[in-house]
C-alpha cells in the first residue's frame, strides 16, 4: 500500500479536487452553522435544547427511527433470506422493488402512504376496524420511516448471505445441529455485522427524513412532531437561534452515528471472507 503513491498518478489532483469540493459544499455551510450556533446565547441554546417540546421531538425522531430501523432489521433479514434462499413467482421483480424507496421521491412516498394508511385509505380502513390508527399518530411516522429505510438492511445482508460458504451450514448439520440451532448459532452471527450496518444506515436515514413524514405524521407538537419539522417551524418563527441550536445538536448526533457505521463496516470488512 505504502508504495502506491509513488506509482499511480493523480493523487494531488484527485485529493485537491475532493478537498476543494468538500470544503465548498460541506465545510463552509456546516461551518456557518457552527458559527451561527456560537453566536447563540448559551442560556438560550440550553433552554431551546432542553425545552420539553424539543426533547419530545428528539424522543420521537430517535424513537420512531429506532422502531422503524428495528422493523427493517427484522423484515430486512427476512426479505434478504427469502430472496436469497427461496424461489417464488416474480422473485426478480420483488428483488428489484426493494430499491424503490431509494428512487421514489420522498414527498410522493409520503403522500401515497398517507392516502393508504389514513382512516379512509385502502389499508387504514381495515386497520381502523381493529382500532389501529396509523396516519397522524407516531405509528404513521414509523410507517414512513420504515418505507424510507427498507432497502438498507436487505441490501447489506443479501451479499453476505450469498457469500456465506455452504460448508458452514453443512458442517453444522453434520455435527448434529438442527436448522434453528444452525441459524441462531452460526448464520445469524455471520449476518449480524452486516445487519447492524444496515440497521444503523436505516436509523440514520430515518432520523433526518422529512419529506415523507410531514404528510403522514399530523405534526402535533409533543406528539407527532419530528425534529426536522421542529427546525423548520423554528425557522418559520424567525427563531434562527433555536433552529440552529437544534440543528447543530441533531447534526452532531447524526455525525456520531455515521462514525460508528464506518467503524462497524471497517470491522466487518476485516475478517477474511475466503475460508
Amino acid at each position: 500500500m505504502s508504495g502506491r503513491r509513488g506509482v499511480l498518478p493523480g493523487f494531488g489532483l484527485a485529493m485537491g479536487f475532493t478537498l476543494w469540493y468538500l470544503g465548498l459544499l460541506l465545510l463552509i455551510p456546516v461551518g456557518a452553522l457552527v458559527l451561527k450556533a456560537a453566536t447563540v446565547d448559551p442560556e438560550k441554546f440550553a433552554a431551546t435544547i432542553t425545552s420539553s417540546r424539543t426533547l419530545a421531538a428528539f424522543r420521537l425522531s430517535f424513537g420512531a427511527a429506532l422502531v422503524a430501523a428495528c422493523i427493517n432489521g427484522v423484515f430486512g433479514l427476512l426479505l434478504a433470506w427469502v430472496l436469497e434462499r427461496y424461489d417464488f413467482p416474480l422473485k426478480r421483480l420483488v428483488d428489484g422493488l426493494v430499491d424503490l424507496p431509494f428512487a421514489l421521491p420522498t414527498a410522493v412516498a409520503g403522500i401515497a402512504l398517507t392516502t393508504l394508511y389514513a382512516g379512509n385509505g385502502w389499508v387504514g380502513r381495515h386497520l381502523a376496524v381493529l382500532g389501529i390508527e396509523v396516519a397522524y399518530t407516531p405509528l404513521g411516522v414509523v410507517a414512513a420511516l420504515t418505507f424510507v429505510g427498507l432497502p438498507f438492511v436487505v441490501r447489506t445482508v443479501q451479499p453476505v448471505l450469498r457469500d456465506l460458504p455452504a460448508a458452514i451450514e453443512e458442517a453444522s448439520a453434520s455435527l448434529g445441529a438442527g436448522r434453528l440451532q444452525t441459524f441462531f448459532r452460526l448464520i445469524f452471527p455471520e449476518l449480524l455485522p452486516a445487519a447492524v450496518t444496515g440497521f444503523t444506515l436505516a436509523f440514520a436515514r430515518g432520523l433526518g427524513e422529512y419529506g415523507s413524514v410531514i404528510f403522514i405524521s399530523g405534526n402535533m407538537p409533543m406528539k407527532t412532531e419530528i425534529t426536522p419539522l421542529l427546525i423548520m417551524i423554528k425557522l418559520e418563527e424567525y427563531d434562527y437561534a433555536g433552529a440552529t441550536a437544534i440543528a447543530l445538536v441533531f447534526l452532531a448526533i447524526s455525525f456520531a452515528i455515521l462514525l460508528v457505521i464506518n467503524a462497524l463496516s471497517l470491522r466487518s470488512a476485516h475478517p477474511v471472507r475466503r475460508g
Partner: protein
Amino acid sequence: MKLPFGGPKRREKKGRPRSLNEPPLVRGLLTAAALVFILLFLLLPLGIVFAKALAEGWGMYSRSVFEPYALRAIRLTVLTTLIVVPLNLLFGIAAAWAVSKFDFRGKNLLVTAIDLPFSVSPVISGMLFVLLFGAQGLFGPWLLERDIKIVFALPGIVLATLFVTSPLVARELIPLMRSQGSEEEEMAVTLGASGLQTFLKVSIPKMKWGLFYGVILCSARSIGEFGAVSVVSGHIRGLTTTVPLHVEMLYNEYQFTAAFAVASLLTMLALVTLVLKGLIEWRASLRGEGK
C-alpha cells in the same frame, strides 16, 4: 437438443436435501410474511399513486402532466439534474480515486466527511444554505449588494441538491475501486502509459458500470429531492418549483388527481431507474465485474 460434453460443468443450483433447508411450511410462511411486508410498504403505495392519478381518466391525466406549470417544473428539475450530476460525477471519481488508490492520514475522516450529507436531514441541508446565502446570512449582505441571487433561485436549488446527492457517486465507486485493486493501473504505468492515459484507458472502462450506476442513483435522488429544495426554493410557481414541490403544491390546492398524476411521472421515473439498475447489475454479473 444439444447434449453437453466435457463433464458436468454446467452451474446447477444444487438441490439441498430437506435437512439442510427449512420445512416447506416454514418456507411458505416466511415467504408469505416477506411478501405481505413488500405489499404493505411498497406495492400498495406504488399502486395507489397510479390508481389516484388515473382516477379521472386519461384526459385529466395528460392535462395535469402537460399543464404549463408542470412543464416548467419538469424543466427546472431536468436543468438542476443536468448541472448536479456531472459535478457530482467528477467529485465522485476524484474522491474515490484519492481514497481507494492511496494511503494517507485522516482517510477515515475523509470518508466520513464524504458520507456526511447522508446523515444530515435534508431540512438542515437546505437551512445551511439559507444561513450562508440568505439575506440575513453570512454572505447575504455582500450578495445583496451585488444583486446576486442564490437562495430562492436556481443556484440555491442546485446547491441544496448538490449537497444532498454529493456522496452517491463516490459511495458507489469507493468499494468498487477498492475491490478491483490497482494492479491493472500499475501494469499500465509500467507499460509506459501516462497518468491520463492510464485513467482514461484502464480505470474508466474498469469502473464504467459502477459509474453508470452512481449516475442513475444520483439522478434519481436529485430529481426527487424535496426537503432541502423546499427550504431554499421560495415556492414561486413556475419559477422555483421542482417537480416534487409542484406535486406538493397541487396536493395543497385540492388538485389530488393532478398531484398524483405528476407524482406518477416521478414514480415511473423511479421504476425506470430500478429497471436500469437491474440491467446494469445483470450485465456486471455477466462480465464478472461489479459487486
